[in-house]
């Protein structure tokens, strides 16, 4: 009896993925539980386990094949029993996100609209994940596709080739044109295949940058997703930043006390863990800020699921501390260590980085004073945390020194207006400056 092994869906929304690696070869005996392949979505690498026994009779989808549709047969197993495959995630241990540093002072918040751009989180796998070119190699494209793309100002690298071996053929260029191929100035188009209209760009050459004067790093699935989601969010969501300075000395003292209580390294709490806890608590206190805009109405979330941006090789990802409002600091600390490590290994399960209600991006460890992140749809707010640094503050009529950090809350104005944002920041500031309030 021959059984087909099908491409597994690693999440309910997954439509296709990349068959990153075969861990078995034709003729190998496979038994239940053996890891036989690795599948890559734009966010994670997952292992595929055999459910039944048999001999691998044929590999139908070669290693490195991109855009493999869910339920496509990827291999054939011969054996008595019928077999199916189940995806399993293999976790990797290790430590978490970077903390910011501390100190106090206060500024009144004021709503303003000033676009700021910066790194920001990106979640969710795209369905139309486009294939990437191997190692910056020349894009395989037919002469006709090349010529038409050049005429129309479409960057070939932005296209998904549907020809043999991922070759870009005329119909791919025509599809891009049909998808709304406005010709836009600018370097590499962040366009991803599928979904949203593809943003086309002139080639660098057309923009006056000589060929050969740069190296081209191909866009992988993650880069494409970031490009697409951030472009859509920044363009389509009316957003504004609110900035506030917060004194950190009390929080730093509390952290030192907490950590003194525990010897176990996995229980050590970072400033970032405290910020997560404070943010979650503030969201419960100001529920209007824990919300998402939908066409049907504003969704107010029951729990604070905090997405934390983690920089990883080749991009970033936002693992989520679910129900952070209900979790103790030590639990948050342990979870963040685990999530951060697995994020860096690209081993997160989709449900671990999809669907938070609020995001935190912390660039304090880089010494960044203040920045405003791009919203992570569908979340109503994202908090950008700057570095804690000793600053001169005015107490009464005298100058004093305090550890101060500037935080910026970027708000989706359809959900959170200035006053709500200000109320949330005030609640957050109160918790950071008097951390004991988090525990009552």
């Amino acid at each position: 009896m021959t059984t087909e092994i099908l491409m597994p869906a690693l999440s309910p929304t997954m439509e296709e993925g990349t068959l990153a690696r075969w861990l078995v070869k034709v003729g190998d005996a496979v038994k239940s539980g053996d890891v036989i392949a690795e599948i890559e979505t734009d966010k994670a690498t997952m292992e595929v386990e055999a459910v039944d026994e048999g001999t691998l009779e044929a590999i139908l989808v070669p290693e490195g094949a991109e855009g493999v549709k869910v339920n496509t047969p990827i291999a054939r197993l011969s054996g008595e029993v019928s077999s199916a495959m189940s995806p399993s995630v293999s976790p990797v241990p290790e430590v978490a996100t970077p903390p910011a540093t501390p100190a106090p002072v206060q500024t009144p918040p004021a709503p303003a609209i000033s676009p700021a751009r910066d790194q920001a989180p990106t979640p969710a796998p795209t369905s139309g994940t486009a294939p990437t070119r191997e190692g910056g190699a020349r894009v395989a494209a037919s002469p006709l596709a090349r010529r038409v793309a050049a005429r129309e100002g479409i960057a070939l690298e932005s296209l998904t080739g549907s020809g043999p071996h991922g070759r870009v053929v005329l119909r791919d260029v025509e599809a891009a044109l049909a998808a709304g191929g406005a010709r836009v100035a600018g370097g590499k188009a962040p366009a991803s295949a599928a979904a949203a209209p593809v943003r086309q760009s002139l080639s660098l050459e057309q923009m006056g940058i000589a060929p050969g004067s740069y190296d081209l790093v191909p866009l992988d699935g993650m880069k494409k997703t970031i490009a697409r989601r951030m472009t859509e969010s920044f363009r389509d969501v009316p957003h504004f930043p609110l900035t506030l300075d917060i004194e950190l000395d009390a929080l730093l003292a509390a952290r030192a006390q907490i950590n003194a209580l525990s010897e176990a390294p996995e229980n050590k709490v970072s400033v970032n863990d405290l910020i997560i806890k404070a943010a979650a608590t503030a969201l419960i206190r100001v529920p209007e800020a824990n919300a998402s805009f939908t066409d049907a109405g504003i969704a107010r979330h029951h729990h604070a699921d905090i997405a934390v941006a983690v920089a990883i090789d080749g991009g970033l990802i936002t693992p989520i501390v679910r129900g952070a409002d209900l979790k103790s600091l030590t639990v948050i600390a342990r979870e963040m260590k685990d999530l951060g490590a697995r994020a860096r290994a690209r081993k997160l399960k989709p449900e671990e980085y999809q669907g938070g209600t609020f995001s935190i991006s912390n660039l304090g460890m880089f010494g960044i004073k203040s920045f405003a992140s791009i919203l992570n749809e569908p979340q109503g707010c994202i908090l950008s945390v700057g570095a804690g640094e000793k600053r001169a503050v005015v107490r009464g009529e005298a100058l004093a020194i305090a550890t101060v950090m500037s935080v910026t809350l970027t708000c989706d104005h359809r959900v959170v207006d200035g006053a709500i944002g200000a109320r949330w920041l005030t609640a957050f500031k109160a918790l950071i400056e008097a951390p004991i309030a988090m525990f009552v």
Partner: protein
Amino acid sequence: MSAPDTFDLIILGAGPGGYVAAIRAGQLGLKTAIVEREALGGICLNWGCIPTKALLRSGEVYEALDHLGEYGVSVQGRAYDFEAVVQRSRKVAQQLSAGVAFLMKKHKASVIEGVASLVKGASAPQVKVALKGGGERLLTARNVILATGARAREIPAAGLVADGERIWTYRDAMVPKATPKSLLVIGSGAIGIEFASFYRALGVEVTVIEALPRILPQEDAEISAAAQAAFEKRGLAFRVGANVKKLSRTGGGVAAEIEREGKTERLEAERAIIAVGIVANLEGVGVEALGLACERGHVVVDAHGATNVPGLYAIGDVAGPPWLAHKAMHEAVHCVEHIAGVAGPRTPAPIPSCTYSTPQIASVGLTEDQAKAAGRKVRVGRFPFRVNGKAIAAGETTGLVKTLFDAETGALVGAHMLGAEVTEMIQGFALAMTLEATEAEIFATVFPHPTLSEVMHEAALAAYDRPLHI
């Protein structure tokens, strides 16, 4: 009848579509059965493409005797043994049919001889076979491919009905006892023209009647005209824009009453060949009971060959034009890969078309009229064989190559050839189109000298006003 035999795939018909599907299925590890009511290889191999090529070759060799003097050669006397000509053609067909039997065995396809009909089944239709040796077998599979082909079209209202004696279909025309003195060929598609060319080579008085205003109506108009001129030089007669009102038997032969430009004419001959198109073989398959969607006499399929009946696919002639063996083979491979789940996206491949007359005609892509009708601005290149070194040396100077390029993108949109061996060369243009070549890649390709194929290069250059040898 015993319990049903179960397969992964059952193929109805072992013509070029069916047997290629069986081979690909075998390569992909599908347990396959192929049902054939007559002979492995189907019409193509037994009664079409292959045996006609054998006949045509005999005709060419014989006709070449007319020109021996030009080559400085002479022979004493000339004759042909028509029985031997036909026998050779049959032997060629038999050899290849045996080859298909070997291929079926090699790829572990179960060959079932008999007449199949489809019965409603669970996930796919079941196949009931009335076995050649008697008895019946019921086969089931997850997927069934209909590859039953087509046969000559007859038009009873105009008397266009074969009697096997004086009024022939292609099949009768392949195995007569002797050559007639005169012949009417009704229809000037590839089949009609090939028989006309063959019989003319053996000295038969041939008149070709075509209802449309020009012969080889599927070809580019310029090629049609040049071909007709070349055929007339060989002594073929034509009546174009002529409707056959009535074809009937006379005392010793046949007579066709034709109407042309409002005038009627009576043409007499010993024999007539009906070559007015084909109809799909759908009768008795049981398609009515399944509710199979058909349109203009053929099965409606999607890009993968899937019909509206779950689990049922159709490929080749039964699935619509162009009625060409290589189209059936191409569809077969994609259809089976789709069933096995390993197919890539279906690329609409340009399908070349070939007529093996003297001179030959071959084409791929759009004709100039089609391109214009589609609103495409094209650049047209032409180059004749009469200035080509190899053509002159070989004494094969008839014909030309015509190329069409998209004026804006340089895409090769069509190529049309008339001349010696052009059926062997058209694949060069087909390959260029599949690879989406532009004029630049064709220019940059080195064509060997001296060859007839240099005319292809020149015709491309000519489209950009830069041919070298004219």
